[in-house]
């Protein structure tokens, strides 16, 4: 299983709660999750976890990553964590921020990149609570048994 983890300019609050959540998931399913990529290095992923409102700097970083791999990527199941990533949060109209994952995707698509994904799950909260992260990840793994069987 390949995991992509994109911090698009978050404040670290959600990222640390994500760790707390992942520790719970590992305890529950009894298998280790693989350590994720932090930038787009491959053309297809099974799970993509997104935090942060999508800053201009991170937009440029992802644009450079996508150019390097040929402009086409499959993100698999996308989990959008935290109020910022869901809709921009308190930064929604700042000049440096795209305003959440949807607007970030729109920016990428308007630049001619082809991005596919299978599902999007939004988890709100500022920051998200580890219980919620656990619930989402466990549900996702149970709904798609091929994901869990690819874990060692």
């Amino acid at each position, binding site marked *: 299983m390949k995991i992509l983890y994109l911090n698009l300019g978050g*404040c670290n*609050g*959600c990222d*640390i709660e994500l760790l707390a959540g992942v520790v719970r998931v590992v305890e529950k399913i009894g298998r280790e999750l693989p350590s994720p990529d932090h930038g787009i290095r491959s053309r297809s992923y099974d799970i993509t976890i997104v935090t942060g409102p999508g800053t201009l*700097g991170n937009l440029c970083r992802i644009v450079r990553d996508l150019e390097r791999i040929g402009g086409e990527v499959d993100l698999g199941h996308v989990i959008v964590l935290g109020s910022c990533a869901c809709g921009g949060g308190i930064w929604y109209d700042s000049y440096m921020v795209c305003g959440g994952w949807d607007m970030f995707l729109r920016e990428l698509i308007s630049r001619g990149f082809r991005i596919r994904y299978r599902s999007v799950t939004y988890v709100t909260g500022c920051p998200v609570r580890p219980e919620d992260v656990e619930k989402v990840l466990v549900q996702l793994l149970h709904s798609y048994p091929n994901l869990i069987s690819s874990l060692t």
Partner: protein
Amino acid sequence: MVIKVLEECKIPLNKIVKLREDTILIDVDKHDLRDVIKCLVLEKGLHFSTCIGVDYSGLREGELALVYVLTRPRVKLMLRVLISENEEAPHVHDILPAAEWCENEAYDLLGLKTSLPIAERFILHWGVPSDVRPLRKDFRHDMKIHSLASCKLIEKEGFVEVDPHHPFFYEHEDFLIKVVGNRIVDVLYIGSYINRGIEKVGESRLKIEQVPFIAERICGICGFTHSTAYCQAVESALNIDVPERARFERALMLELERIESHLLLLALIAYAIGLRDIFLELLRYRELVMNACDVLVGNRKMYGLNVIGGVRYGFTVEQVRSVRELVKKLKDVERALERLSESENLKKLKDVGTLPREDAHKLGAVGPVARASGIDYDVRRDLSYAAYEMVDFDVPIMDSGDTYARIIIRCEETIQSIRIIEQVLSREELVNGELRTEYYPHPGRTGIGMTEAPRGENVHFVITGHDSKLYRWKVRAPTYANLAVLRTILIGESPKNAPIIIASLDPCLSCTDRLVKVRKW
């Protein structure tokens, strides 16, 4: 005392304005600035905090200004240099390297004129057009500049990327090193990826009483210290006295946050040097602190407690009792920290990444980084705020300035923080008394608020504006000052030690990048 120092540096007394008991504003002529800074910082040993570019066009005090902030025990000093639109801006960073980033930031975001050979863009280095100057008053905060960016890559030939982070904590930032043989010879830091434009949002969209909540969201690790510093800046500008109960509540939350932040760093260090059991143990103790915050404010992070003039709600006796139970369990962390500090793997970091005292002063290092190099400066003691005057604690100091010292300082600070929390929890004032003071937001007042964040001195500068909004808000997070020492501590070291040396600064990039930079020193 401070007046005597100012006289010795030939500052005319009629130019000194005392804003508050501990805050002094001085209008300095552009041509005298270098001499004044040289005398005050390099000869008299005042600490240089930051400098701030201000567009005064909406307040009729002039056109543009640069404000330099210096501190010494119990006094905050602001040196203001007024400049007109077509005049060249002053600079002091050739004699005082600590000023380099903040001066360049002002040149970039305000468009001040300078004849220095600097890069065209320091912070907005994404190919943004040169007429975009976000901190000018005629720039709208909701202008979309994404479509204008060209995302071109910065030239970094011959550099190798260092990734000092734990696999699961990742903020994108480029630490690049150049290696010859087995030694680092050059360092490059490319930042500004996490710049969210917070200062502009705080100045334009939000009201003065809403800003504490966005200030808390600067950082997900040390957010409360930012909202406290902001509230203190406004309280200082508007001359508000905070009730004792609010001061104790703030001190309690600040110390819980410090423990949480230090334990996270120490856990990551333990992981990096191969002590996996201590890593897990420290994270378990950290969960206790998060639970204590959950009990007190109903959220594990982002407490939403601070408002200008006090706090939003009071803690009850039951809450305090259950936190006391948690702190009793937390006391055992001392044993884990002892095991960490006595491990052989950590002792290998002695004499690695050394920062001498003189360099630390010149580069403006703060917090545990400065204290590990023998600089005896702690905002909690020297510019006391919240309830720190009423509790008893020590400030650990070490002289060696190496990576080992920077880690040990944090272990000792964690133990001191537990000591402070125990004292605060036993005070009657924590559960009895007034919560907040009412105030009126007068326009045009200047104030400065400082706190000792887990990573060091944290500075918030405000000028209040009309319609109960802010006119100017500047945040100087501690990592902003501490990253300036990267070059000094990395050059000459072996590249395999680079991640742990960078980690020992505890860089918190979301704080730093709320507005930031790309720079080759």
